[in-house]
C-alpha cells in the first residue's frame, strides 16, 4: 500500500515563502490554509460566545414574562443618554477596528497602531461611562437580587420566609431585584469581555508597532477584529433591550 507519489518536503513549502515566514505553522501546507483555518476557529469560538450570552437573554426574557410591569418600570431607572453614548462609542470603535485590519493588510504600520490605539481609547471610554452608571446605581440602591433596597420606590418588600405556593404579591420588589440582577450580570459579563478585548488589542498593538503584520500575515489583527465586532454586536442587542423598551 504505497502512500504517495508526490514527494513534498516534510516541512511544508511548495507555495511562496511559507518556509521563510516566521509565523508559518508546519502542520499546514500553505499560509492561506493556515489563515482560513484560524478564521474558522475564531468563528466557532464566537458561536460559543453567542450561546453563552444567549442563555442570559433567554433568562431575561422569561423573567420579563413573569414580571412584565416591574421590568418595564425598572427600565426607567437606567440612564438612556449614557447608554446611547456607549453605543456610539462602541460603533466608532468597530469602525476604527475595521480600519486597523485594513491598514495591517495594506502594510501601513503607523496607521495600524493608530487605529488600534483609537479602538482601545473607545473601549476605555465605554468602561468609564459604565463606571459612572454603576456608581449611580449603587448610590440609589438599585442593586441586584437580595441587595436591592431602592428607597424611592414605594413598592412593598416581598414576604420573606418559606416558599409558599401562592405567587408573590404583584408589584413587590422581586421583579425589580431580578431586573437589576440581570442588568448587572449581562452588562457585567459584557464588560469583562471588553476588558479582555482591551488586553488583546494592546497586545496586538504592541506587535503591530514592532512591524509584525503585513499583507502576508495579519491574522491576529483580523481575529481580534472579529472578536471585537461580536462584543460590539452583543451590546447592540443589550442596549435596546435594557434602555429603550417602554
Amino acid at each position, binding site marked *: 500500500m504505497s502512500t*504517495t*507519489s508526490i514527494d513534498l518536503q516534510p516541512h511544508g513549502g511548495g507555495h511562496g515563502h511559507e518556509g521563510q515566514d516566521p509565523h508559518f505553522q508546519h*502542520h499546514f501546507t500553505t499560509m492561506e*490554509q493556515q489563515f482560513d483555518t484560524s478564521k*474558522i476557529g475564531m468563528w466557532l469560538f464566537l458561536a460559543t460566545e453567542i450561546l*453563552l450570552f444567549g*442563555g442570559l437573554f433567554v433568562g431575561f426574557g422569561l423573567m420579563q414574562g413573569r414580571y412584565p410591569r416591574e421590568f418595564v418600570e425598572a427600565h426607567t431607572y437606567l440612564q438612556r443618554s449614557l447608554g446611547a453614548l456607549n453605543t456610539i462609542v462602541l460603533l466608532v470603535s468597530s469602525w476604527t477596528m475595521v480600519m486597523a485590519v485594513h491598514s495591517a493588510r495594506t502594510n501601513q504600520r503607523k496607521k495600524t497602531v493608530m487605529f488600534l490605539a483609537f479602538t482601545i481609547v473607545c473601549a476605555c471610554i465605554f468602561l468609564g461611562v459604565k463606571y459612572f452608571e454603576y456608581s449611580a446605581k449603587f448610590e440609589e440602591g438599585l442593586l441586584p437580587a437580595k441587595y436591592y433596597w431602592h428607597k424611592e420606590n414605594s413598592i412593598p418588600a416581598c414576604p420573606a420566609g418559606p416558599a409558599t405556593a401562592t405567587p408573590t404579591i404583584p408589584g413587590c420588589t422581586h421583579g425589580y431585584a*431580578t431586573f437589576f*440582577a440581570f442588568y448587572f450580570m449581562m452588562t457585567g459579563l459584557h464588560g469583562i469581555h471588553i476588558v479582555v478585548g482591551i488586553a488583546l488589542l494592546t497586545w496586538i498593538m504592541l506587535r503591530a508597532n514592532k512591524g509584525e503584520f503585513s499583507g502576508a500575515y495579519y491574522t491576529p489583527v483580523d481575529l481580534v477584529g472579529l472578536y471585537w465586532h461580536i462584543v460590539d454586536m452583543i451590546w447592540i442587542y443589550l442596549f435596546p433591550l435594557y434602555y429603550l423598551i417602554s
Partner: protein
Amino acid sequence: MEHVVKSGAPVGQRPRPTKNYLNETTGIWSWMTTLDHKRIGIMYLCGVLTAFFIGGMFALLVRLSLLTPTHKIFGRVLMDAEQYNRAFSLHGIVMVFLFIIPAIPGSLTNFVLPLMIGAKDVAFPRLNLASFYLWCLGLLMALTSIAMGPVDTGWTFYTPYSTTTTGAVPMAAMAAFVLGFSSIFTGLNFIATVHKLRMPGMGWFDMPLFVWGMYSTAVIQVLATPVIGITLVLMVLERVFGIGIFDARMGGDPVLFQHFFWFYSHPAVYIMILPGMAIISELMPTFSKKTIFGYRAIAYSSVSLALVSFIVWGHHMFVAGQSQLANVVFSALTFLVAIPSGVKVFNWLTTMYKGNVSLETPMLYALTFMITFGIGGLTGIPLATLATDVHLTDTYFVVAHFHYVMMGGTVIAFLGGLHYWWPKMTGRMYSETWGRVSAVLVFVGFNTTFLTQFILGSRGMPRRYYNYLDQFQPLHMYSTFGSWILALGFFIMAAYLLASLRKPADAPDNPWGGTTMEWETSSPPIAHNFEEQPVLEHEPYDYRHRVTV
C-alpha cells in the same frame, strides 16, 4: 493484490524507525510543553483513566453501602445518609465531567484523527495543549471542592437544593465550568481540523466514519457546552447573591433551572455516545475484513443525531411539572432520535454478514457493545413512552438505562478503541489471552450489576436512595456482586496493559488489518506522523485489494 498476514501486517513489514513520537525528545518538560497531538492524547489518556478510577471507587462505595439495608460491612455501618449522598454525587460529577465527556475526544481522537486524515497535527496544537491544561485545572478544582466540603446535590445540581445546601457547590460547579471550556476548545479544534487539514484527495465521503462521528460530536461540544456554562454561573450567582431566577422564595422558578440544565445535558449524552459509535464503526469493518455496510447512512445518522439531540431535552422532565403539551412534543421528538441509532446498529451487524470475522479483544468489546448498547437503547423506549415513563422515571430503571448506554455504550466502545489503538500508540501488543479474560469479566460484571436494576426500578425502588425497603435487598445484593466482578475485570486490564509497556516496542504497523491511514505509519508513529504527505488512494474500508494469507 496486496498480501497481508492474518494480523493484517503487510508481508515484509517496513523497517522500523529508530525515533518515534515517544522518544524523539525526552524529559518531563518536553511533554509538558508538547504541541504533538499524540503526546497530548497520551497525557489525556492518563488523566481520564485516573478520573475513571476515582469515579469507580465512589461507585464501589455506593454499591457496598447498598449491599444490605443496614449498610453494615463486617458489623460496622459504612456510611451515613449524608456521606452516601456525597458519594453518589461525586461518582456522577467525576464520571460525567472528568471522564466520559473528555475521554474519547481527548485521548483516542486526539491521537488518531490527524493520522486518519493524513495530517501532521490538529488545526490548533497550542489550543489542544490548553484544553488539556484546562482539564487538569478542572480536576484540581473538583478535588479542592471535595476537600472543602463534598457536594451532595447529585451531578444535576437541581435548585433549590443546590442553592441552599452546605458543601462547596460553587467550587464544584466552577470545576464543571472550566471542564466545559476544555471540551469546547477540543471540539472547536476538531471541526477546524476536519474542514481544513484533510489530505489531498480526501473528500467528505472518503473520510473514515470515526471522523464523521467525532465531527458530529465536536459540533455539539461547541454549541451546547456554553449553555451549561452560563447555567452553572447563574446557579452559583443565585447561591451567592440570591438573584431569584430559580428560587421560589424570591419569585423564581426551580423548573427553569432544569430546562437550562438539560438543554446542555441531553446533547451532552450524545457527546458521550457519538465517539463510542465512531469507534465501533472502525472496529466492525476491520475485524470482519469487509467494507462497512451503509457508509452514507452511518455518516448522515451521526450528523442527524447531533442536530436532533438539541430538541429532546424535556424528556428528562416529564414529571417535573412542565405542561402536558411540552410532554407530548418532547416524547414525539424523542422517538425520532431513536431511529438513527437503530440504523447504525443494523448497519454494523450487517457488516459482519458474509465477512471474515475474528474475535480479538477489540472485537469482543464491539460485540459487547451491540448487546449492551442494544439493551440501553431499547430500554429508552418505555422511558420515551409517556404512559410508562410516569412510573419508571426517577427510579432505578433510569439508572440502569443510562448506565447501559453510557457504560455499556461509551465505555465499552472506549475500551475497544483503547485495545485497538494500543499497539499504534505504544508500539506494544498486550496479552491477547488476558485481554479476552478481562473482556468476559467486564461483560459478566456489567450485566450482573445493572440488569437487576431494571427490575428494582420497575418494582418501585426510587433512585438516590440510601435506605430501601427490605424486599429490594436480593436485587441490590446481586448488583453489588456484579460491581465486584466488574472491578476485577478492570484491575486485570490495568495489569496487562501496564505489563505490555515493559516489552520492547515491536508491534507491527498494522496488526489488525485496518484500512485507515493510521495503519500506514509505524507503531508508534514518528513525530510528524508520516514520512511523506499521504494522498488518498482508495475508498474507505476497501478490502477488495487485500488477501489474508
